[in-house]
């Protein structure tokens, strides 16, 4: 089914430019690209709110129940079983504002849902970051090599991505889940997977979700390598490595970062879907997707089991999407703040003066 993949979006957007070169007119004098991007990003309300929400969730999730060997400030862990308080219903209340023993409630055997949700949020964030790192890395390398060297390198790499793109993720996930839950003695993979289920899932999803990125990066490289500044560098004797890293990559980094964030938000949903189908994270470890799929039957009767983890999924996804949206606007010099009315007026006005005036970029 056509679950929205936002890589497609950018892929086609890029294609829209075809062979034309993006007009990267300087925004304002005396600002580096980094400064411009930062300025634009911080001018984007949605992105700022998204960033704030994400940071709060991140801190909450990692400090409350602790991470790795660092203990957290919350009194329960996601594995602790304690007696049912209030029949498992949440003890927190808005008025009077109180936190209570189990603010999000408990599941049927008395595990604290707040601890589980926090643990789940941690896992989801970890999966997301791993996917972002792996997919971004492989996508950049494969796409970059294919786009820069072309020829047989491109042919092989792109056919490879074609193969990976048409193998269903669900099937791969089922295989990985199966391998991870196996416990053959002597198999290093299952040994590793047994204790690091989330890590394995994240790595696996990273290994399959780079293909879209690779295609985008390749497209970007294809246009950039034909640019004059690359020719200039080549003539002045720069090595391939220098051209790639010093000249092309910095120009392609915007596309990369934007799409990595979008891949990451899609990855959280993918994890949710896989856990729902029973091939994602396995209990007793937990993730947000697993929590809501385990508790979907509780939707009408013990809604807190369903709503709290669901709320966190939505919050993380929303914030990442808004951050990505802000980054896209910030990195893309073509995306100006555009107002139809002012545009009309300026255009009309300028048509009476000079054609050149219309070319002058409006202040952003």
């Amino acid at each position: 089914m056509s679950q929205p993949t936002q890589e497609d979006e950018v892929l086609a957007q890029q294609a829209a430019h075809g062979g034309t070169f993006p007009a990267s007119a300087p925004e304002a004098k005396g600002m580096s690209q980094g400064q411009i991007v930062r300025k634009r990003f911080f001018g984007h309300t949605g992105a700022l709110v998204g960033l704030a929400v994400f940071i709060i969730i991140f801190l909450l999730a990692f400090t409350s129940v602790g991470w790795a060997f660092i203990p957290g400030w919350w009194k329960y862990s996601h594995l602790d079983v304690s007696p049912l308080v209030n029949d498992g219903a949440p003890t927190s209340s808005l008025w009077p504002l109180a936190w209570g023993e189990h603010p999000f409630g408990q599941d049927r055997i008395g595990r604290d849902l707040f601890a589980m949700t926090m643990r789940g949020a941690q896992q989801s964030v970890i999966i997301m970051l791993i996917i972002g790192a792996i997919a971004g890395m492989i996508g950049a390398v494969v796409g970059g090599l294919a786009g820069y060297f072309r020829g047989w390198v491109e042919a092989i790499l792109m056919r490879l991505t074609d193969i990976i793109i048409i193998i269903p993720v669900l099937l791969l996930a089922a295989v990985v889940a199966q391998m991870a839950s196996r416990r053959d003695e002597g198999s290093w993979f299952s040994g590793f997977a047994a204790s690091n289920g989330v890590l394995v899932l994240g790595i696996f999803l990273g290994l399959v979700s780079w293909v879209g990125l690779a295609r985008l990066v390749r497209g970007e490289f294809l246009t950039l390598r034909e640019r004059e500044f690359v020719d200039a560098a080549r003539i002045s004797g720069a090595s391939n490595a220098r051209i790639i890293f010093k000249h092309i990559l910095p120009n392609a980094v915007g596309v990369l970062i934007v799409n990595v964030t979008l891949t990451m938000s899609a990855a959280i949903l993918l994890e949710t879907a896989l856990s729902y189908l029973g091939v994602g994270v396995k209990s007793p470890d937990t993730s947000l997707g697993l929590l809501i799929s385990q508790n979907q039957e509780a939707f009408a009767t013990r809604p807190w089991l369903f709503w709290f983890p669901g709320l966190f999924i939505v919050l993380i996804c929303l914030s990442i999407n808004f951050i990505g949206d802000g980054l896209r606007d910030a990195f893309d010099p073509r995306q100006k703040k555009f107002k139809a009315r002012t545009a009309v007026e300026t255009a009309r006005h300028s048509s009476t003066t000079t054609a050149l005036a219309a070319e002058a970029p409006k202040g952003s």
Partner: protein
Amino acid sequence: MRFGRTSKAVGIAAIAAFVLSACAGNTGGTTPTTGTAKQGGTATVVETNAFYSFNPNTADGNNDINSKVSYATHSGFYYIDNKLNVVHNDKFGKYEKVSDNPLTVKYTINEGVKWSDGAPVSAADLLLQWAAFSGYYDDANAEAKTGTSYFSYAGDPAGLALTDFPEIGDNNRSMTLKYSKPYADWEIALAGPSIDVPAHVLAQKAGLKDTQAFIDHLKGMPRGDAKAPKAADAALKTMAEMWNTGFDTKTLPSDSNLFLSNGPYIVKSVSQDQSLTMVRNKDYNWGPTASLDEITVRYIGSAPAQVQALKNGEADIIAPQPSADTLDQLKALSSQGVTVEQGNQLAYDHLDLNYSGPLAEKNVREAFMKTVPRKDIVDKIVKKLDPNAKPLDSQLFVPQQAAYANSASNNGSSAFGDVDIDGAKKLLNGATPEIKIMYNKDNPNRVDAFSLIRESAAKAGFKIVDGGLGASDWGKALGDGTYDATIFGWINPGVGVAGVPQIFRTNNGSNFNKFSDPEADKLMDELIGTTDRGKQDELITQIDKKIWDSAYGLPLFQSIGVDAYSDRITGVKFMPNQTGVWWNFWEWAEK
């Protein structure tokens, strides 16, 4: 076997269904009788799986939904009621034990019982069932890859394999089986419980003139011998192939011979993977009379979707996979007249300890058993489903069986009623054995049971290692020695005492923890040849004690089943075995 692979489910005694009235004031409507309900009407029943075969007896077609459809469209010598009694249907025919030594059983079909194409149901049909269920003609040798295996029967041929070629008599209406040695499960051996496949259709397919030619042909063939395989018999092969796969279909076949009925209903239409509709069989008068004119089966996989379909009036009767939440949701529907029933099923979860590794010593096993918080497990996992749930105290009986109480109080299970950490510590004497527990990680009940056991056992000094495996792996790991204890489920075998040695006899197929007790083995050998019910119970009670005495492990709790039906329908009653609510479909009626 008809109702799933593992359930030769005829119980010894009753399992009562808890009929929960929907709410305090609403006590009516739960005990309807067919007398007050009107004739006619329709009902929609929800099933999880989609129908795909008109022959539920084959290894491939053996699925609960196929069995249920077959049950409603065929009749036989008996059916099983929800107290797990074998109820004889004398209007169809009778069967009785003619002699004890050698064990001889005679089946006679009444005059007038016929297939929906008009052909009489005769001894030829019984003979076909016998040939298919006994594997009499098979001479296949798996190692040498010689010989032929004709019918691919899903059930256990062990009982009927003891019989010789039956005697046909009474103008082709009776068949007499003679066993070479006593067989405990004779009453359900020629199990259908109904007669499903018409011999005359198969005979026609194989080019045989009529059912008489069919009988003669089979009579002329010798018993198959794997050591001296013969060339395959063409006619029998043709018939067996048709029996094996000819009835597999997801749509209504154009050839009506493929779905002949001899029961209360006949299939009218099949919508692939969506629904199946049965209407009344006009000729039928040889058994319980059905009230509804039409029954529609719809397939819905997930439990919440089933509940919502019931709530929305798209379904009348559902039996979802129960969870506390599903049950609460169903109970909340009582305001719109939905009745919810719940009860114990024959399946139960248990903890088995290996007789090897750190648990090789009886003291350690016993110490471990003392730490298992069985009450807590029951409270947290099944109490929400069934407020009266208690830990199961017998390895071989379920509480509703008459022999359970006696066996449970004498088998030594009382020592493990409560958690006894101090006792366990004493037995351990300072040791801290590392115990790896294997269970199905994808089954939330087992995950929760594991969490609770880990919590408690750790207090006594056990180091618990999480050996949980995924759904597709834990079964393979059973008995492979990579774990020390395991949590999983059995289905109580009921009268099918053949299942008892399968689990508990030395070196048998499903004896995964390598329990071995020569005396118990002897008792089990005796059990399998005992035809008397009382004697069977006595032997099982003794075996139960032997198992508990050796600190085998602990049964934990029985699974809970749920069914619910809308206010349009009456007459639905809970059933513990895999027939589910279908067992008395003829009593279903529209209000």
